[in-house]
């Protein structure tokens, strides 16, 4: 039951996001009342669907942030301009970071903001700036490929939800078996990483080193090489 409840909630969030952005693309002025109305509708839907689940403050924050994350993910996938897509992805990452804080993964929430929203997204934006996208020719917005992708997504989502519905889960994840370590989350994570998972950690560092060397070797310009963007023209 809970699965379909949650699925309906995120579906409504995604629909409202699509609706207000559709209005924004037609006429930017309409976006503000649409956003206010959408937020009110989402609030109503949340009360109707979630009822007492969202009663406490952390639960309320979780539902708001997951709705924001769902909407931003949908907007990232649908925005035509890659710079806007990158900014929507930053919003997804930040809402995930808030949810990580709620899940008592404070250190990882900080890593999420610094490494993901900071370093990786800057890399993306640099690449977008370096690679000039050619003006896209006008093409139909909805292609057969998109129907196929939506079908694959819906089938995958339905099957995962069906599997989740089969298995009994704790009723309150924010409190369930809270990670109890007196010295805090960071120390517990570090201890586990450097004792129990030392070997995988070393392999991960090797992976990062080889990715570093590989990226430099790939992106380095050969001295005598003529390029399509410079010499070819």
């Amino acid at each position, binding site marked *: 039951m809970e699965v379909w409840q949650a699925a309906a909630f995120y579906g409504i969030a995604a629909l409202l996001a699509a609706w207000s952005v559709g209005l924004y693309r037609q006429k930017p002025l309409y976006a503000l009342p649409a956003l206010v109305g959408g937020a009110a509708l989402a609030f109503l839907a949340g009360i109707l669907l979630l009822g007492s*689940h969202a009663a406490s403050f952390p639960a309320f924050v979780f539902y708001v942030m*997951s709705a924001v994350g769902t909407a931003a993910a949908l907007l990232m996938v649908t925005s035509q301009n890659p710079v806007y897509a990158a900014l929507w992805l930053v919003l997804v990452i930040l809402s995930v970071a808030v949810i990580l804080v709620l899940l008592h993964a404070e250190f990882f929430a900080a890593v999420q903001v610094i490494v993901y929203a900071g370093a990786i997204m800057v890399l993306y934006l640099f690449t977008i700036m370096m*690679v000039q996208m*050619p003006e896209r020719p006008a093409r139909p917005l909805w292609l057969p490929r998109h129907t196929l992708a939506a079908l694959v997504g819906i089938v995958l989502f339905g099957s995962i939800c069906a599997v989740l519905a089969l298995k009994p889960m704790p009723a309150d994840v924010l409190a369930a078996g809270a990670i109890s370590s007196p010295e805090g989350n960071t120390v517990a994570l570090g201890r586990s990483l450097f004792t129990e998972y030392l070997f995988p950690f070393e392999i*991960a560092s090797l992976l990062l080193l080889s990715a570093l060397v590989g990226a430099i070797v790939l992106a380095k310009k050969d001295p005598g090489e003529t390029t399509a*963007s410079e010499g070819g023209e």
Partner: protein
Amino acid sequence: MVPATHLLVFGTVLFTIGLAGFLCRQSVIVMLMSVELMLNSVIVNLAAFSQINGNVRGQVFAVFVITVAAAEIAVGLAILILIYRRKGEVNPGSWERLKDW
């Protein structure tokens, strides 16, 4: 009170949107961003399972996920820049032949 199922469904929603985005977008950069979205959904689920089981193992694996994401993105964007330099465009439809480079 948040049932664990709601959290896992949130992870599934993010993963599904990322998958659909990867399948239907034309721009390579947005395709790579969709992969990041899928990895983020995995991070949410790992943190949730860490919380359900009451230990930090899920978070340790989330650290490995973010390591792999960083490595993937460094190499992927380097390849993208290389292709742009050789061909002058980054449309994946024009990558039918990679062999002669």
